[in-house]
Structure formats: structure tokens, C-alpha cells
């Protein structure tokens, strides 16, 4: 029996289990089981147009499919003779030049779903397209290996499915001070100072009290651990930049968090895509570069891996509105210091061999990336979290 299961069972077995010590029990063993490496996940919501992000700028098929939105050799930052990054990705190109970026092409899964909601669920729960999982993959990481909600933090106001487990959940906060103040209301303090252990043995009510205690202690921990950290690093003046700044502050405080989650939206470029897409990529790349610099200054970059994904790529052929519709396979970015495979991890898919919808066919299952990260980076048993074996890749 593993330790967590043991603790769970003993909670059930003994109604004498007193809760401050229950929280303490977790605190004293914090980090014992988890390594010191941390994972940052960035979701580009709405379906990023991967083909105009990592661009096969010499491919005639590409230009034919996208007469008004294709990028030519002068619009890209060349990675080699055939492939270039969108010109807004200058900061990302610099990371690439330092060997900090690995681009995995053609990532997807069988029978791709093209609905935002469903595709997001699939990526966040690590399910196949025909199964409905109600817990997220990071949530299940917490179920198996977590000790506190703050082991996984989403920099947002509410928690994504990705961070919700069967039993345990991560915590979402954009503003640790506000969270702390809410939890620290004198009335709630009074309630928490007066509960009896009877509260905790009751089926659902016990769960509510435990959640309240966990929220209170997490809010306090996050606020107190991070409040004194300051940084001189400048970030772009936008929401995403601010989120990554908060995230860097957390990381540099030494907070015991293994997974951070954040997202950048509005990638659903059905019409007049060029300007919007260019602006979004710029926000993304500039913020990521600032983030990496901030971490490097504090010597925390070496233990941080940044994974960027989008719920789907977009249709190869542009539509009549100078935009693109929902597609399937897409690229995934891995940013980190000691990558085993730098630059392009694999070749881009051929545009002459598309699926029935005219979308790029997937080559690498996204769950292989998750499995690799879980297994080789977070050093945990990926099959416990993914409930299935997926081939490990070689980027780390």
C-alpha cells in the first residue's frame, strides 16, 4: 500500500483522526516523494494555426492552399532551408538558437475531434476521442503523488479540468493576496478554530471541511512563501505577461509546486487571421522569453520544463474569409535547458497526404509527450496517471 492510500484509509478507520495534525502530517512529508523539477504547461486556446507558426515556406502545396495568408521566405525566421518560424516569434527563435527549444510536429490522436470543448477535454484529461474522462491528467498526478493543492497551481481565477483529479485538485490563483484575504476572513478563522473532528468523519460534509482547511492552508502557504519575492525582469504589458510574471515569482520563491498551468486565448482565427495571429504569437514569444530570462537569473530555469500545446491545429486550406477552420494535428513546443533533442524533433507532415477533412495526419500521440514528461521529468509512473502505456519520446 502506498503512503497516500495508507493515510486515506487510516482517516476512514479512525474517527479520532484530528485535523490540524492531518494537515501537519502532509506538511512534514512534503516533497519527500516528489523531485525538485517542475513542469509549466501553456495552453494556446482556440486552436493555434500551427502551419503558420512553424512554416513550410518553400512548399508549393502550402502556398496553393493558402493564397492570401501563406507566409513566404521573407515573412519567416528560417530554421533551415524549408522551414521557418513566424516572424513574430523572434524571441522564440533566440531560445531555439540557444538550444532551449524542441519542436514536436504532427502531434494529435486517432479520430480527432474538432470541437473546442471536446478537443480541450481530450487534451486536458488525456483521453482518447471515444472516451470521456472526468478527471484531468495533472489532477490524477495529484491523486497519486500530490500532497497539497498547491503542488499544482493554475495562474487563473478558476481551475481547469486538467488540474482536477478524482480525489484531489490543484489550486487556481492569479492573486495570492486576494485568495489569502478571502480565506483569512475572521469569521472563517472562527469556524475553523471551532470545528470538531466529527465534522471530518461525515461523508460529504467532511470533504467540505477538508477542502476549506486545505484552501486556507494553501492560500496562506502560497501568500507567505511568495510575498517577499521581487524581480527586476521586465515583462510585456499584457495579461499573459502578467501571468508568467506571477508564475516566475512563484517558482523563484522555491514554492513546493510541481506543475504550473496557464493559458493564452483567442487563437480561433476563422476570419482575417493574419493580424490577429501575428499579435498573439508576439505576446506568446515575448512573454516566454522574459519568463526564461527571469528564471535564469534565479538559477531556476535548469529545473523547469515548459510545454506549450493547443487543442487542435487548423485546416490546411484557408477559408473564404482569409482565415482557417478547425483542423487536427499540430505542433507542440518544449522549452528547457537540457533538451536531448534540440530544434525540430521530427519532420513536418507532408501536405500531399492529408486526412479526409483536409487536415494534417497525426504522427505522435500527445499522450506520448505526457508519458515522457511524467516519466523522465517528474519521475513518476506515467501508466498510473494515463492508465495505459504510451511510447516515451527522446526530447528529454
Amino acid at each position, binding site marked *: 500500500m502506498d503512503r497516500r492510500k495508507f493515510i486515506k484509509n487510516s482517516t476512514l478507520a479512525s474517527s479520532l483522526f484530528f485535523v490540524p495534525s492531518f494537515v501537519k502530517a502532509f506538511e512534514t512529508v512534503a516533497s519527500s516523494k516528489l523531485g525538485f523539477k517542475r513542469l509549466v504547461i501553456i495552453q494556446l486556446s482556440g486552436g493555434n494555426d500551427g502551419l503558420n507558426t512553424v512554416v513550410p515556406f518553400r512548399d508549393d502545396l502550402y502556398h496553393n492552399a493558402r493564397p492570401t495568408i501563406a507566409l513566404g521566405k521573407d515573412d519567416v525566421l528560417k530554421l533551415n532551408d524549408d522551414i521557418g518560424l513566424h516572424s513574430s516569434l523572434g524571441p522564440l527563435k533566440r531560445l531555439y538558437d540557444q538550444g532551449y527549444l524542441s519542436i514536436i510536429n504532427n502531434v494529435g490522436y486517432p479520430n480527432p475531434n474538432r470541437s473546442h*470543448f471536446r478537443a480541450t477535454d481530450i487534451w486536458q484529461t488525456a483521453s482518447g476521442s471515444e472516451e470521456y474522462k472526468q478527471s484531468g491528467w495533472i489532477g490524477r498526478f495529484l491523486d497519486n503523488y500530490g500532497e497539497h493543492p498547491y503542488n499544482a497551481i493554475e495562474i487563473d481565477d478558476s481551475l481547469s479540468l486538467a488540474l482536477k483529479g478524482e480525489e484531489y485538485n490543484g489550486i487556481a490563483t492569479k492573486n495570492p493576496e486576494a*485568495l489569502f484575504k478571502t480565506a483569512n476572513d475572521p469569521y472563517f478563522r472562527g469556524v475553523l478554530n*471551532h470545528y470538531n473532528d466529527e465534522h471530518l468523519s461525515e461523508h460529504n460534509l467532511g*470533504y467540505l471541511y477538508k*477542502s476549506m482547511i486545505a484552501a486556507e492552508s494553501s492560500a496562506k502557504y502560497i501568500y507567505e512563501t511568495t510575498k517577499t519575492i521581487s524581480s527586476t525582469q521586465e515583462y510585456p504589458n499584457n495579461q499573459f505577461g502578467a501571468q508568467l510574471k506571477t508564475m516566475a515569482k512563484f517558482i523563484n520563491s522555491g514554492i513546493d509546486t510541481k506543475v504550473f498551468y496557464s493559458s493564452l486565448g483567442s487563437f480561433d482565427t476563422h476570419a482575417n487571421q493574419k493580424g490577429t495571429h501575428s499579435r498573439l504569437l508576439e505576446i506568446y514569444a515575448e512573454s516566454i522569453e522574459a519568463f526564461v530570462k527571469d528564471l535564469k537569473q534565479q538559477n531556476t530555469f535548469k529545473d523547469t520544463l515548459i510545454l506549450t500545446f493547443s487543442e487542435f491545429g487548423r485546416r490546411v486550406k484557408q477559408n473564404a474569409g482569409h482565415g482557417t477552420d478547425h483542423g487536427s494535428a499540430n505542433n507542440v513546443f518544449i522549452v528547457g535547458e537540457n533538451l536531448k533533442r534540440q530544434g525540430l524533433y521530427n519532420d513536418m507532415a507532408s501536405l500531399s497526404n492529408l486526412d479526409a477533412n483536409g487536415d494534417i495526419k497525426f504522427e505522435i500521440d500527445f499522450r506520448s509527450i505526457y508519458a515522457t514528461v511524467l516519466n523522465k521529468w517528474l519521475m513518476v509512473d506515467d501508466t498510473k496517471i494515463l492508465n495505459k502505456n504510451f511510447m516515451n519520446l527522446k526530447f528529454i
Partner: protein
Amino acid sequence: MNQKHILHLYWRAGFGITPKQIEQLIGKTKTQVVDTLFRQSSKTTPLVIDLIELESFSVDRLKKSKSTRIDFNKISREKILEFNGAWMQRLTNTNELLREKMTLFWANHFVVKEDNAVFVQQYNNVLRQHALGNFGDFVKAISKEPAMIKYLNTKQNRKQSPNENFARELMELFTLGTGHYTEQDIKQSAKAFTGYNHDFEGDFNLRQRQHDTGFKYFFGKAGKYDGDDIIDIILEQKQCAKFICEKVYKYFVNDRVNSVHIEQMVNQFYPNYNIEKLMRFVFSSDWFYAEEHIGSKIKSPVELIVGINNTVPFKLKNERDSLKIQRVLGQVLLSPPNVAGWKGGRSWIDSNTIMIRLRLASVLLNNAFISSKEDGDFVDAYKQRLLKRNKNKLPFQTDAKWSVFESNFSKTKVNNLKEYIIQQPLNNGTLSYLNNLNKSSKQDVCIQLMSLPEYQMC
């Protein structure tokens, strides 16, 4: 029936009840009270908003022009938000209480997400119409609704290339549950639903040329079945009745299922599938009122919001803020996470939602202030300071009608408030804390009670 049991019944069959309403029921027999509940829900009042703007579009125009389609979609999205507001309104103010609660239940059973407001409204009213009717008729009606035909791709289900999405979910989520059918059953039954389509107005039509009229082999039978025949064959399986009874039990009684109770329910439900009869049986049974069930359920966000409104009516100054609240609590009506719907129970709760939920009543009704003034404490400076500070920081502005509360609770002593607001006996520790707090204001005590973890339960 005593006060406690009336409260329990009304929390499960509705969203709570005020002392004034309880006065009308106290002393009546259980049969009388349950009868009243059903009688009040015997009619169906469709929920209708003004959709004239959408109805003025024609199919031809939409087909021809992309900009017309964009206009249509934009208006439609707005109308769906409006319908969300109308539905919340309906839940807080209805004569057909049980029917509305059942509608909410079925909306999370026959889950769809649709972007055409005309179809959304029509679907919602089909749920309402069948909420207490015959389950078989219900499933058949649902299978022919445009919202469902679109959501589970029956529209793409053609004789030459069947799409199995609807057939699979019909069995997995709507009728039998996983493991009670084979992949072969899915393939065969999908054929029976080929050719399903609808017109622009929302009427069902069968595209004969796309419909597979051949033999289907389903659950050991063979025949030239159509969709309705398949549903009839599914209903013959006792497992279907069991699956529905378990879901009803988890929602209305307790999330931990008692197999003896389920068996009794199945005996009522099978083979006629009369939903009203089933619900009447549940609410009339002795076990429904057992101590272990009272206050054992975690309220859904909608139950929480509507419940607060029942005790202290409030109005949001900006109606759209209702969506904001639904979103942070994790349940936006008409926008379920996926075809399986909201999981409910403990999944409503995480470290964020618990704090938001505990804070909700004070924010909606009392400028985010929860009095923690102790008995004998005369200085109210803290309260004044906090109220002032909070006022500008509130996420939304509300107008709370405390006068309605005062009138509904006029005969309730401040010490007895908890028996109306909290469904289960309070634990000694909490009780001693509350007892030490100043009780000069009924309003303050009401907020204190609504800010307890116990208030999250019904």
C-alpha cells in the same frame, strides 16, 4: 409532516422553502404534502423568450450569404445568454416547482450543447414537457430533437457511412450504462438512426434515402427496426430502469446508493417507465426521510444560488453578472462540460470554489461582510470599516430584499433560524462558536449561517 421533513422534501424536490410557506403545510399528512407538490406540477408552462429576430431569417438567405450566417449566429449567441437568464429566473420563481427541478435533472441527463437559440429553447421545453411523463416517450422525443441530432451527429449518420455517436451515448449515458451492450449492438442500432434530420424551423424529418431500412440484429433480436423500435427494445431491458433509478436516487436521495431502495424503485418503474409514479414513490417512502439522507447532498451551484434567493431575494444590478457567478462556481446553464454532463457531488468543490461558495451569500446579500462580532462586543467599527472597503471592491452590485426575508421569517426567533437555513444538526464546536457571537441582528445571523460549510449541503 414535521418542519424538518418538509424542509428536506422541498430542498430535494425544489430549492428550499420559507417558514411562511411551511406554516401552510405543517400538520398535513405526508400524502397530502406530496400530493400538493405533484398537483402544482401537473401543468407545463413552457419557457419562452422573444426569438422573433431569429425567426425572421430564411434558410435561403442563410445558405447564400456568409455575412447573414454570421449575423444569425451572433444574435443566436445573445439569445442563448438571455435564455440562461430566463431559466434562472424561472427556477427562482415558479409554481411548477417539482417539474422545474426535474427539468434541471434531465438537462444533465440528456445533455446537449447547442448554438441555435431556437433549438435550445425547443429542447429545453421538451425536457420540461416530459419531465414527469413516460421515459420511453421522452427518449424517443429527445432522439428527434434538432439539438440532439446536431450534438451527437445523428445528422451525419447515413446509410452509406453510419455515425455511431448517438447510438453509443444513447446506451452508455441515456439508458443502460457502460458494460450493458456490445460494440455490435452499437453498430446495428446506429443503422436504425440513419437519415435523422431536422429542418430550419426545428421540426424532425427523416431523409428516406439516407435511412437504412434493412435488418438490424440487436440484443439477440432481428428486424427491420427504426429508431423508435430500438428504443423500445432497450426499454425491455430491466437494466435500463435500474440505471435511471440509480441516477434519480443519487440526485434526489443520496449519492451513495442503497441497493434495497433501488430494487423497490425499479419495481415501480419497470416496465411502464412512468416517471411521475417513480418520483411519487421516492418522496412518499419512509426511507427518503431517514436521518442519513437529510442534509447529506452537496448543493449544485444552481441549487446554491436559487436557494439563497429563496431565503433572501436579490437582484443583480447587471443581469449578465449571473453568468459570471455561474462560471466561477463551475455550472453555466446550457453550457455543460461534455456529453456526460456535470459530475456533481464532490466534483463541485475544489480549493477555489469552496472559498467562493462560502463567500457567496455575504457577497450577494451583505456587501461581503460576515459579522464575527462576539456577544457583548459593542464596538462596530470593524464592520463599518470593512463595509466601506468592500463596497467598491465587490465583483458585482446587488439589491438584496431583506424586507422579504424579515416578513417570511417574522415569526422565527433568531435562535431558531439555523433550523430553517441549515438542514442538519450543527456540530458542537460550530454551535458553541455561533452561540458566542452577537445575535442582535437576524440579518447578521442569517449571513453567518449561510457562510458555514454546512450551508453547502441540502
